[in-house]
């Protein structure tokens, strides 16, 4: 019966007729696709899409913000979507538990934990101490470091992170993050112009809101087709979550790495600045003020992080690969004065670690280095937890 | 005549392959795709067909694309006999 039905129902179709029908169908599909793309470009929901995350739902959140150039080995992907970055972090797991004294660590790659396993980072070492706040809450540190050396990036992160109700913010800085002209160098800042512009406006930053480094997608780039790379990156970030959950790996650990330079060039310049004087105007001190304002009433501890102090060739001219002595010495003086003038909680730990506790860079420390640093911070956390405690 | 072939095949399959002489096999029941006859017994079946009907089934033909039911196999045998 089926056969007869289809026979009578099916009119003999000529090639041309079917081709026309096929073309009509194709045209309709194309039109739908174009409309969908236009709607997407008009609404441009990319930032909101970043909030959709399988982390903290299907698998545990990451212990640090996602960053990775070699996803296949690192099981980690760099994305430029701030919402997506935080959505994949454990801090986004849910409301803050009642018994938690929440500490946010803001900083560069040394805080993020370059070459360190998630269990070896500064945040992990602090958590391992099992410290309790003055009011008896459990101190819980969250690693919000991100491997870019720029204070503007730190401000962007801390400003976003304040919604997670920290009880204390520890901001680890180093001179390399200060030069005023390199604040916007990284794509994370360039690709979030709206966020950065609002920070510029709110905190009166010296950055130019129309800086040509800002990336503004054209209409075509805002369509689904134009956003395909960003969309794919968001998707890949979720997929690599499976391997993150399965292996606990979130970084490409090379078998061996080039140790930080001990023998140095006889170069006295710092980012094109010449001795003898480091001018405050060359440093993005306004970003420090912005960060302090962003943190608001929550206690803040600013730490000048440890650097490698070399004893090798030309070490009388430079401390390490990053810093000529004159510039770094003056930076410390500037910071000390500024902290005093503004009344900041400031800790200068620049020479805390011996040479052997550094790995592949003058600011990346070993697990033991992270432990030593944590030991310095723990008493200060204890002290600061008294502020605002009943 | 086809029915003779079919019943002879059915008898052989039931008795020799399935070892259930009383089992009835429908002439349109899939034999290979259902897994009722595995590849070993398929060779046996081809040897039986060769002996019984003088029809050669090539090694490349022992699959469900050539025949999957008794009816199809009987048809094939009849075609080759004539």
């Amino acid at each position, binding site marked *: 019966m089926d056969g007869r039905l289809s026979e009578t129902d099916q009119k003999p*179709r000529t*090639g*041309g007729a*079917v*081709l026309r029908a*096929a073309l009509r169908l194709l045209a309709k599909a194309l039109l739908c696709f174009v409309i969908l793309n236009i709607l997407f470009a008009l609404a441009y929901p990319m930032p909101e899409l970043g909030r959709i995350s399988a982390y903290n739902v299907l698998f545990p959140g990451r212990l640090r913000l996602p960053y990775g150039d070699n996803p296949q*080995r690192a099981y980690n992907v760099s994305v430029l979507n701030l919402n997506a970055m935080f959505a994949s972090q454990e801090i986004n797991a849910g409301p803050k538990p009642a018994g938690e004294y929440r500490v946010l660590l803001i900083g560069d790659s040394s805080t993020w934990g370059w070459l360190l396993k998630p269990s070896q980072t500064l945040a992990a070492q602090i958590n391992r101490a099992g410290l309790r706040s003055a009011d008896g809450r459990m101190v819980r540190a969250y690693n919000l470091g991100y491997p870019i050396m720029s204070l503007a990036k730190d401000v962007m992160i801390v400003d976003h992170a304040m919604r997670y109700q920290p009880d204390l913010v520890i901001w680890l800085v180093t001179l390399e993050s200060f030069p005023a002209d390199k604040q916007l160098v990284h794509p994370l800042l360039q690709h979030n112009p709206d966020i950065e512009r609002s920070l510029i406006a709110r905190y009166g930053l010296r950055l130019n809101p129309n800086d040509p480094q800002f990336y503004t997608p054209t209409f075509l780039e805002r369509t689904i087709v134009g956003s395909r790379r960003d969309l794919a990156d968001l*998707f*890949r970030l979720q*997929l*690599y979550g*499976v*391997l993150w*959950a*399965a*292996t606990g*790996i979130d970084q490409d650990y090379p078998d061996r790495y080039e140790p930080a330079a001990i023998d140095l060039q006889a170069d006295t310049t710092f980012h094109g600045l010449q001795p003898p004087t480091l001018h405050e105007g060359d440093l993005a001190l306004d970003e420090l003020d912005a960060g302090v304002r962003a943190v608001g009433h929550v206690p803040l501890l600013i730490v000048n992080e440890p650097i490698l102090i070399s004893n090798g060739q030309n070490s009388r001219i430079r401390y390490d690969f990053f810093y000529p002595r004159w510039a770094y010495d003056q930076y410390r003086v500037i910071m000390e004065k500024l902290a005093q003038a503004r009344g900041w909680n400031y800790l200068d730990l620049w020479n805390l670690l011996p040479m052997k506790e550094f790995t592949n860079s003058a600011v990346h420390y070993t697990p033991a280095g992270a432990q030593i640093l944590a030991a310095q911070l723990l008493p200060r956390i204890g002290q600061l937890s008294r502020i605002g405690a009943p | 005549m086809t029915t003779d072939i079919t019943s002879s095949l059915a008898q052989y399959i039931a008795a020799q392959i*399935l*070892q*259930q*002489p*009383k*089992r*009835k*096999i*429908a002439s349109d029941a899939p034999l*290979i*795709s*259902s*897994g009722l006859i*595995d*590849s*070993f017994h*398929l*060779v*046996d079946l*081809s*040897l039986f067909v060769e002996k019984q009907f003088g029809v050669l089934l*090539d*090694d*490349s033909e*022992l*699959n*469900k*694309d050539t025949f999957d039911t008794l009816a199809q196999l009987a048809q094939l045998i009849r075609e080759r006999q004539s």
Partner: protein
Amino acid sequence: MNLTSILAFTALTVTFGVLVLLAGERIRRYKGWVMLVASVFAVYWLQSSMPLRNLDFWLPTASLGLTVIVWVTINIPGRIAAREGGTVATRDTLATLTVVVAVVLLVGLTRYTDILITPSRPPDIVSILISLIVVAALAAAAGAAFGRRTGLLSIPIFLIVALFVIFKLDALARSASVVLRTLTGQATDQASALDLRWLGFSYLAFRLIHVLRDRSTGKLKAGALSLREFVSYVVFFPSLTAGPIDRVEHFTKDARSTLTPGVDDMVEGGRRIFAGVFKKFVLADTLAIFALNATNAAQTHSVPWTWLLVYAFAFRIFFDFSGYTDIAIGLGRFFGIKLPENFDHPYLKRNLTVFWNSWHITLAQWFRTYFFNPVTRALRTRTFANGKTLSPTVIILTGQVGTMLLIGLWHGITWNFVAWGAWHAAGLFVHNLWTDYSHRRAARAEQKALNDPSSQPVSEPASPLPYRAGLMGVVNVVITFHYVALGWIWFALPNLDLSLAVFRRLVGAGG
């Protein structure tokens, strides 16, 4: 095939299909030539680059050369017959040779332009001409040696298998690379088995062996295949890289058909290509991110996540492979070629025997035709001097273990593929024993029933409750799938220790 080549092939085939729809016969009669030219180009275009100088030109040329040589080998008496009987076949052969040589030279001439078909610049034209002469000489020699002595065709079959072993066995491939590096004057200490990645050779070899074997048994008659059909069959571009392995008589039947590929063919073809692209580039490539591999197998320590990686591999390999097959079948449809199906819901089968009727069907079928069936037939009909015959169990064991090990080795001559083959051989054998046991049990039950005069003939083994049968079906499917999925652990991981470690981890034993 990557997405670019698939899109290019799709564009080509769809254009051809649309032209056929619009112009019908006027275009359709060029079908064979379009297939031939596209396929010969594809042999070069799809070959990936290799560190050895010009190898990305020579290996595709070798594919074509081998194909021509085998054609001459199986076809010498036919050629003579054609010469006596008429000139049409000869003219077609000459035209085909001209076209093939022209394409090879055209690819070679890209050396002097900026548009390359091969990954690297082809060798100079004199070397190419010499190679063509070598192929012609080898073809003449092979034709003279085997053309009239089909009994000797096991020699070229053996040579192809030997070539296969050289390319698939790491140690031999490395030695071959050393030899080739010496010839090209490249550093031999860099030699690696990875230097030799002969695109499509596994499939090509199987098509050639199939044809040679059928010729030697007389199933295939000399002169049955034109050179154009034969080259198109062996290197047909949709199925060049990942099968399916069609049978030559089936392929040529479709290729010769004067039926114009219709709208239905194109709609179905388009659907298959679309489905294939989705399976391969969306599903498989997504799963590939966290599918079991040597690296993550060593890094994962928790039980549930290890299971997830194993499942991901099982579905990844299915979607990857069946996606490619869909694309191949879809492309073929536009030329009116119905390539055989390679997959038939393999993960929804109730036992391993049926699984192997539905997974990589054309490969399993090939091994049944050229190994399992003849071996079983020979052992089954063998009677020893004392009048004894081999027991079915011994024959089944021999046939199945042999077949599965060979299928394993076809994927690569390494211990892990042997283990994978053995895993499936063991599974099939156990399933066989179980089937035998249940048949005997059923027979006993029948015998009992015979003594009971009220009994009726049974058509199906009686099942007490229908839902119980359904439930058993689901359980069987789940068990079969898991047996196959666990088997992939051997397949996915390069060494047995690692595979064993994963097995231990899956049951929560050992890190």
